């Protein structure tokens, strides 16, 4: 985003790209088709299921080039243009090939104040790739994203639409990258909130003590 503010230029996407997948590859299996039918039955109209179908297609093909979006729209009998609008709206749908791990660093309000950009820049320098780029070894893609709903544990990042890594520090990033290089994905842990456990009648998560929430509230360097 910082680069974008200095040089806010939006480039024209390619209008007629070469397809990545062949027509033989572009099919849903019988089981996938059954799954789609189940989803469709859960919505008032078939196109309601597009998010799920796109998700499934992304799991299957790895990412969503135009022809996969067209296939997904076709499976629901909805206009391709509309499905394309949906797919481009969400950063969680990958429109191009990504690295093995996609690191979505949040730089929205709360994370920004708590040092989201510091974390992003640290990660960029460490991996030698800018936001939006993939490292040469194909292992990591860095993305800059808007609020992922974990503001209470800002700054944070998300790994490939999966587990969150919260209350980021440089050390945490180092450890994370090392682990990912060994293909060790962190466990999913949900958000912890800095309220008093007793007030909530013990209705709290159990890993509160493991976090730094109470002791070291992260603050952006620029905020001093």
């Amino acid at each position, binding site marked *: 985003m910082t680069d974008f503010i200095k040089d*806010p230029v*939006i480039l*024209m996407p390619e*209008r007629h*790209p070469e397809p990545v997948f062949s027509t033989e590859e572009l099919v849903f299996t019988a089981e996938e088709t059954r799954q789609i039918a189940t989803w469709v039955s859960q919505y008032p109209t078939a196109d309601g299921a597009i998010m799920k179908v796109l998700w499934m297609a992304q799991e299957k093909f790895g990412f969503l080039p*135009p022809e996969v979006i067209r296939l997904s729209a076709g499976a629901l009998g909805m206009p391709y*243009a*509309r499905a*394309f609008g949906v797919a*481009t709206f969400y950063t969680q749908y990958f429109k191009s090939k990504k690295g093995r791990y996609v690191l979505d660093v949040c730089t929205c309000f709360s994370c920004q104040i708590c040092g989201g950009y510091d974390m992003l820049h640290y990660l960029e320098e460490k991996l030698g790739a800018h936001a939006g780029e993939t490292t040469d070894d194909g292992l990591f893609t860095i993305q800059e994203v808007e609020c992922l709903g974990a503001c209470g544990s800002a700054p944070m990042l998300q790994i490939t639409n999966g587990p969150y890594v919260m209350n980021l520090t440089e050390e945490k990033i180092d450890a994370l990258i090392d682990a990912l290089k060994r293909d060790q994905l962190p466990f999913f842990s949900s958000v912890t909130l800095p309220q008093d456990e007793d007030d909530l009648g013990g209705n709290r998560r159990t890993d509160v003590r493991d976090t730094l929430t109470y002791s070291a509230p992260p603050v952006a360097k620029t905020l001093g």
Partner: protein
Amino acid sequence: MPTVTIDNQEFEFEGNPILLQFCLDHDIELPHFCYHPAMSAPANCRQCLVEIGTPEIDRGTGEPRLDEDGNPVIRFFPKMMTGCSEDISDGMVVKTHRSSELVREAQKDNLEFLLINHPLDCPICDQAGNCPLQIQAYKYGPEGSRFEFRKVSKPKHIELGPRVVLDAERCINCTRCTRFTTEISESHQLTIIERSVWNYPMTPPGVDFDEPYSMNVIDICPVGALTSKDFRFKARVWEMSSTPSITIGNAKGSNCFYWVKDNLVQKVTPRTNMEVNEYWLPDEDRLDYDVFNENRPEGPTIAGQSASWDDAKTAAADLLKNVDANGIVFLGSAFACVEDNYLLGELASALGAAAPSYIQHIEPGAGDGWLITDDKTPNASGCERLGIRPLDATLLRSRIQGGDVKLLYVLQDDPVAAGICEAADLAGVSVILHHTNTTNETLVAANVALPAATVVETVGTFVNQDGHAQRVWPSKAIRGVNRTLSMEIGKSRADKHGTPFDRWFDEDHLVDCQPGWVVIPEIADLLDIELRFKGPRDIMLKVSSENEAFGGATYDAMAEPGVRLVDVGAEV
């Protein structure tokens, strides 16, 4: 009757009107961008904000609560509401910018937001002068902007398809264009891609915006983001005059405006007529205006040589005088107006010749059941109602080849191009031809050629395939003076274009042609046939009173919306 109070003024209403539309219908201007009466209201531009209150209902009694003075207590919504998405209800109280400072401020702030990333390139934008964003920013917007950063720049002059060009920076994401392709044309070729400052309308990869109605999005785009590839940078809106008329490319008779500069038609845009084309116009109706500008004849000819109008008319009369009526074939025209065809029919009967017939121009399968028809002429129905029947082409061909035909009188058509006969077949036939363009292939065989005024130069009536009779006004001047045309052009064009007192007056591009209702009576005169009318208005008075199929189709009754004629059974 239920009532609504808008800015302290009470209005009665019926049914379930939308607040914004209701205001517009009652001449209360509410600024807005995304709302369009023909499409769903996404309420995404936020420009039509108003304060809305409804009477407080006492839960116990179910009656409205009254204050000390006996007036209902009005409870206002805590936030302003968008007028385009609110139905009016009984007792509703509305405050627009005319009575609410809050609304004025909201409109101003909203425009400041809309303009944050807008390039403000009005000096080079086709829409300037005719742009809702420009007009409303001027009337309701802020003095300046507080946005100090670089504006986002987006793709420019992108050809979305063969006819529509996108300037994404100018777009305010009102979604009118995408809703048009989703709800009206159903081509589904456009969508808004990406999100937040990155978004703009686009075709998905591999798709071109080439549907036959694509250019409508240019008209409904409230900014200059979508422009016509054909018209881009050709003229500013204030340099042109616009005249209400109809398109003649097919039998729908869609209502349009012809935009004229320097006596040349520059573009064609739709004119709303809920009885005919609603708000829309197919692309093919907009792009065939070259026929009005190019290859136009320069005055009448006799045997290919330039001649004066008087000489040409005399020559035509002489030809008609000297043949036996049985040898004369009159061809009416589905391209010409009712008035001209009527006069031709009268002339034929006065001479004792057979009634005219007309050449059909039908492309089976070309129509789409909406605004594009198989029939490529504007007035076949008008001909039929006059008793002019489709020509039996085979019969005429054999009669010509057999030497039966001595004189062929053609009103605005082209029998050679239509494949009825070869120009060579007409060697022994005297041909009188009213032609609009020099590309007319029958012209080489014409003994007398009388340039005819086209729909943009004449006054006349056309009947569409649904039996809707509509009159046209002259959009551009012709060479030579005609009182009726001068009067009508003065009425139809506020700028008095075409008179030497008009500051756009221009001698260039004036075509030396005359309407059929001028030429035919003068030829009749020379033959001592009484066919005088004061003008086309009087012709239609006569036709509508004598011919049931035209009942009610007087000029006064037709005015701009036209008149739906009685059903006369099978239409063409």
